[in-house]
């Protein structure tokens, strides 16, 4: 493996078109090379995120998904092809990213939430808050997409915004409401963009703001969000409580009853998978 703090001539040639951007430059590329991103969910959002972070030169990419490729995935999940049906999504995406290491690590610098259900989103958020990691959260349904950065630069976490889970019967997912490929392509690409900006320390991230995209009418809006809710958000409160050790914080997660909180009778496969964090 090449030296993590300098760029080889081959790397300079390969990344030349981003190195020459004045706001980016060689320092950003070295930060990218020495950083790691964990992508949870290797479907419609995870595919473009992972592809663009790979080609941009991220040092380590972690991919988590215990779903298997289905025929109804491939219209939008551009790393998965018809002959991959039945293959594990994370493995297949990792293969596409030419990464040999799909092992889950604990020390990722940035986390991408590319999942598709409420319970997993709360769980990923809480882990990120308690470990103090920025979380780039994308979601999509039908012709619409939403994108923000949680738990970063005093912006809110997912739970600060949504202290109570939505009623289970009010939640639609891609299986019952549908989703268009270019929508997840757009949001997933933008998740990769936000991860790169956070790692490189450049630009203005979407922390404290959220992009709302309506692809059918083609309307975009960027809304202003509340700041971190230390007083009322149970996770942000615990994360900033100096009397709590890391072990105490880990126990908060173990004790929290996500299925009761979300009003569902049991975890689904996806959320079980993410608990290995």
């Amino acid at each position, binding site marked *: 493996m090449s030296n993590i703090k300098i760029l080889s001539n081959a790397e300079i040639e390969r990344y030349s078109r981003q190195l020459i951007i004045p706001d980016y430059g060689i320092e950003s590329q070295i930060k990218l090379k020495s950083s790691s991103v964990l992508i949870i969910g290797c479907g419609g959002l995870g595919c473009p995120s992972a592809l663009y972070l790979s080609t941009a030169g991220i040092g380590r990419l972690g991919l988590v998904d215990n779903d298997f490729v289905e025929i109804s995935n491939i219209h939008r999940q551009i790393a998965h092809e018809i002959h991959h049906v039945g293959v594990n999504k994370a493995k297949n995406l990792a293969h596409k990213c030419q990464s040999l290491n799909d092992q889950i690590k604990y020390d990722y610098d940035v986390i991408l939430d590319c999942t598709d259900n409420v319970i997993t989103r709360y769980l990923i958020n809480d882990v990120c808050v308690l470990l103090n990691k920025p979380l780039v959260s994308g979601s999509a*349904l039908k012709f*619409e997409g*939403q994108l923000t950065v949680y738990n970063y630069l005093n912006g809110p976490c997912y739970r600060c*915004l949504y202290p109570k889970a939505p009623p289970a019967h009010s939640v639609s*997912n891609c299986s019952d409401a549908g989703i268009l490929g270019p929508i*997840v392509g757009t949001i997933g690409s933008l998740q990769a963009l936000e991860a790169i900006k956070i790692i490189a320390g450049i630009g203005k991230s979407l922390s404290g703001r959220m992009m709302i995209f309506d692809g059918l009418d083609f309307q975009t*809006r960027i809304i202003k969000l509340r700041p971190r809710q230390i007083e009322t958000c149970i996770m942000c409160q615990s994360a900033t409580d100096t009397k709590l050790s890391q072990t105490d914080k880990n126990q908060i997660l173990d004790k929290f009853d996500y299925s009761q909180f979300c009003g569902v009778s049991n975890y689904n496969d996806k959320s079980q998978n993410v608990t290995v964090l």
Partner: protein
Amino acid sequence: MLHLTIEFSGGAELLFNNVKKHQIELPDNRKWTIKDLLAWIKDNLLKQKPELFIQDETIRPGILILVNDSDWDLLGNLTYELNDNDNITFISTLHGG
């Protein structure tokens, strides 16, 4: 009259005949808070399943309210007093990917 633009997105429009944008007028002989507006919407615009819009006299969990593109929590939440030409948007959070 108090002229308001009411918008729904992220699926919240499904409760309102799939109409995303509504122009409404409210009598201006009184003050209107967001709390009052929620009750008015429930009585006048809502087409079905009120429990998917209002719960315990506030918005149901999973819908974010925006006042002129700012989180209502920055502006006093249920107690915010509406001004003429305000845009009030109800965004249902998406979870898919």
